[in-house]
């Protein structure tokens, strides 16, 4: 791949993206338009995240890529290989050892540090999009801080279902100003957005937007005093490592519909098993399955 620049994008494109990132960090939660490039993977596969990662990577970085919390999901593998090939950076599956983590749909269970950057892949950056399909309108609504429509939607949920019926991509308010889409992470992850020591960057390639949370930003999940936000997960423990406080995937294990729950964050689960924790269905930890 020597015919391509470090991390694939040319330096001028990276500069354009870095400018957008800096602007996004200066205005937390605000969606900065950027001239997204056509990448060699399809829109919807994380082209926004890939461009942000490409613009941030330096040769000394150690990259981790997860999709659904797992390092070995097909698209995570594919993106990690892309940067191994085009940037030659070191990669890791261990959250603690990564300097840059690109993620789709999850925030790692392990708390992040000031030395890390978390890059989210974002399909629809506009939290108001499903209430108002027009970009020309939603930009105005953000400018005027006109978020009544969102609160009405949440209120209608409660009046109809007794609860807010948004389970992922749960809207947040950043530093008391912009309402922001945290990307389709489960609302279980929302509390981790706030007061996070790491830089959090959000890239939406097809929609040509970048937004950001600088370290230690105050991020509040929208709710009502009498219906407070509640992070939720399956009411079970991980069958492999026994964790009771991590986000779980449900796995169907037999024809009769028998199911178990396992950690969605594969590195978290591995580390716990390595430390000797064992769930109901788990095998004792061996180096080989790391």
């Amino acid at each position, binding site marked *: 791949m020597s015919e391509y620049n470090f991390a694939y994008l*040319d330096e001028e494109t990276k500069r354009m993206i870095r400018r957008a990132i800096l602007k996004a960090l200066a205005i937390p939660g605000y969606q900065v338009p950027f001239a997204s490039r*056509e990448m060699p993977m399809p829109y*919807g596969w994380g082209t926004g995240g890939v461009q942000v990662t490409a613009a941030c990577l330096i040769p000394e970085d150690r990259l981790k890529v997860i999709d659904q919390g797992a390092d070995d999901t*097909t698209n995570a593998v594919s993106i990690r290989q892309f940067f191994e090939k085009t940037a030659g950076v070191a990669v890791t599956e261990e959250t603690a050892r990564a300097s840059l983590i690109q993620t789709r749909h999850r925030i790692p269970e392990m708390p992040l540090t000031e030395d890390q950057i978390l890059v989210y892949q974002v399909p629809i950056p506009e939290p108001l999009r499903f209430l108002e399909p027009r970009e020309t309108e939603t930009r105005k609504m953000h400018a005027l801080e006109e978020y009544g429509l969102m609160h009405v939607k949440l209120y209608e949920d409660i009046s109809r279902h007794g609860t807010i019926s948004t389970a*992922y991509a749960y809207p947040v308010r950043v530093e008391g100003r912009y309402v922001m889409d945290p990307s389709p992470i489960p*609302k279980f992850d929302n509390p981790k957005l706030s007061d996070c020591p790491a830089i959090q960057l959000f890239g939406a390639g097809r929609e040509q937007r970048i937004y950001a949370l600088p370290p230690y930003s105050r991020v509040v999940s929208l709710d009502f005093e009498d219906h407070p936000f509640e992070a939720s*997960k399956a009411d079970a423990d991980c069958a492999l490592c026994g964790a009771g406080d991590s*986000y779980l995937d449900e796995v169907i294990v037999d024809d009769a519909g028998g199911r178990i729950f396992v950690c969605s964050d594969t590195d978290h689960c591995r580390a716990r098993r390595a430390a000797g924790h064992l769930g109901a269905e788990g095998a004792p930890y061996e180096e080989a399955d790391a």
Partner: protein
Amino acid sequence: MYVAVKGGERAIDNAHAWLAEERRGDRDVPELSVAQIREQMTLAVNRVMAEGSLYDPDLSALAIKQARGDLIEAVFLIRAYRTTLPRFGATQPVDTGTMRCERRISATFKDAPGGQVLGPTFDYTHRLLDFALAAEGEGPAPASEAPARAGDVPHVAGFLGREGLIQPEPPVDGVPPDLTRQSMELPASRALRLQALARGDEGFLLGLAYSTQRGYARNHAFVGELRIGAVAVEMEIPELGFTIELGEVVLTECETVNQFTGSKTEPPQFTRGYGLVFGQTERKAIAMALVDRALRWKDLGEEDRGAPAQDEEFVLMHCDNIQATGFLEHIKLPHYVDFQSELELIRKLRREAGEGREAAE
């Protein structure tokens, strides 16, 4: 005991190997060459060049071969390659009046200077499968040739312009925006709209254009002129201080003449829609012209009839097939996490609804 599924990496490698084998097909059948595709699948090559927005018949043919004939996939390959190309500068605007037309027809005048030239068209073929093509053998006899017509072919709309019957197109100063280098900003200028339409999906534009004909913002279009042929591409080289010809590209240009009875701001006159596309791509060029005309309602002081083809944001944000196919197809990627959160929500709502019913009984 449960062992979590692993092996994404091996699965990908194996899938790619299988894909390569399927692309080749039965090895007892000779392999297609890129040149064969370029020469015999020309209209597919043209479509890929147009929507890929890169004029290169060889690369386009290669992309079609690699994509197993999936033209949107081929367009994607070309687009991804195109973004990596350095930009040397911009060419002079091409002058389609100097086009060496191989096809040129007008539906509004029986004859006009330059004449009606049918060219290589399907228009009057009878759509009967030609089983002779299935038999390998001698190709068709060469078509008869007339001497090339000398001189430029004037635009039909120009004749209406002389009488002031058609709305003029005042020249626009300044460098047009480049939608591949800037994010789309709405409302868009006409230059940006035409750019987006020129690389937009043929099927999407065809459907939209058809909808205007059926009454969703009907704009009474006639094909004032449709011309296909080669035009010279010229560029001014700053070091030289003059313009040199870089080569030729084949273009399809369609200018529609649309009836218009006037509005509060504009007198009764004919108006225009414009389509310009790489290669011989006339369905696309006509569709583009109709959609362009529908999108001009604001400039002409027309009524917004709420039709899809009049809605700039709707049209421009959804006409790109690479964006559309990416987002459409991405829903086959893993969504376990989101689905899990939905599962829990639905279970909770059902539990609460059940409790509510019990309490009521």
